[in-house]
């Protein structure tokens, strides 16, 4: 079995993209993975139905953090509609690895947080 820790995952976990907060975010979401103690928090700015900007902060294993970095990178400038239809398989494709059921939860935390942000929160819609 090839290692889970391919270059892309190591790169994104050590140098996460879109790390931080957005002062003028109109969407915000937070989620936790209790088995690992991973946590993620995302700020999103949407404009004209598109993801104009997105940042995340979080703590946890390399898989959860790399997944958040890769996901935020891939959804920028994408229509909200499309983002809401993303599936677990799309996240695995971004990471480029197969995961055991245990680690799947780490990888999918990013998607859960993002969907939560986009559906539950809509403060001062611009």
């Amino acid at each position: 079995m090839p290692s889970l820790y391919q270059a892309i995952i190591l790169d994104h976990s050590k140098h996460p993209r879109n790390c931080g907060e957005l002062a003028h975010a109109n969407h915000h979401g937070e989620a936790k993975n209790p088995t690992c103690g991973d946590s993620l928090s995302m700020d999103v700015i949407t404009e004209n139905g598109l993801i104009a900007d997105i940042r995340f902060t979080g703590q946890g294993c390399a898989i959860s953090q790399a997944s958040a970095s890769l996901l935020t990178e891939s959804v920028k400038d994408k229509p909200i509609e499309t983002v809401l239809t993303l599936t677990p398989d799309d996240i695995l494709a971004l990471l480029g690895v197969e995961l055991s059921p245990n680690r799947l939860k780490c990888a999918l935390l990013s998607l859960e947080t993002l969907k939560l942000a986009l559906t539950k929160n809509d403060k001062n819609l611009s």
Partner: protein
Amino acid sequence: MQTIKNQFPIFDARPGLVYLDSAATALTPISVIDAVSSYYGTLSANVGRGLYATAEETTAQFEAVREKTARFLGAKRDEIVFTRNTTEAINLLAYVLEDQIEPGDNIVVTALEHHSNFLPWKRLAEKRGAELRIVPFETDGSIKGEIAQEYIDSKTKVFAFSAISNVFGTPNPVAELVRMAKEMNPDIMTVVDAAQAAGHSHIDVRTLNCDFLAFSGHKCFGPTGVGVLYGKEAILSTLPPYQVGGGMVQDARAEETAYKDSPHRFEAGTPDIASVFGLGAALDFVEEVGIDAIHDYESGRATQAVSKLEKTFGDSIHILGLNDRRESGIVSFTLDGIHPHDIAQVLGEHDICIRAGEHCAAPLHRVLSLPATARASFSVYNTKTDIDTLVEGLKNVVKLFKS
């Protein structure tokens, strides 16, 4: 102990295996595997019912394991109840004690308990309107008698604590905790979770003077599917049944039911007979190797591992519990800036098996403000080379994530 390692067939099937997760479940010696399969191969009858040779032989051997388990703990035969595991033993106990807990009473546990010795008591307290009190632990991972005493009063019905924490690996002064609890309240019922102690350090329930004690077969070289609840005869014999059904009644009519005496009263339905046979073989294994030899060997390996880990990783490794002299095979740690799950995953890719997470002890991790820890646990089949392999593996982990 090289000859001991030869008794574990898994190393023939997986020669490269570095198994450092014995605190989760111990590996199984050939004698135990043989006992399990010989039950199915040569007897395969139910217990306590049939009047033919294989049924009588099965019953006799099953009860002989009860006798052996009693000797192993320094108890009497009728004080031994077979369960599925530690978890079921404690749940059984919490269930049958229900009538004795009243609103205004309290139940005392500790902050280092495994969920198995925490949640049954928490639920019981909630159900009966009693208070759950949680004794804090010392930085070395032990419970102090004087501190426990502050939580115990005349309204304390149960004091439940583990003999050895499955995260810290530090033994508790069980006899002293029982004595000090009874000083505060002579009627208190003391419950010892011996999941990490049984088969790894000496246990004598008469010396400990605890009222109840639970352990799992699979953590002391036995098969999965069997656990033990010890209870003092004078108390056990007064408690109501847990599950009801076959095997535990004298007489069942429409009007009234007469239950069997303990321990059979608590063993409704067909038990995991093969696993009980396996447990018997596991206790023989422990006796042959010697409980003190097992304890010294496991603690010795853990002590060596700690010293090598500290030498190699210096300030970037944080080891929980007693440092210079370990008293069990358990070594939990964290490495700066690397999540325990990543450590375990990378090691796992090289056939080095450790555990990462909360180890079913969430309250303990909350107190320490740690999301998770990594845990290596050593047993009789672990060689010095296993320690070297672990340290080399961890060096690779650091290289992978820190360069």
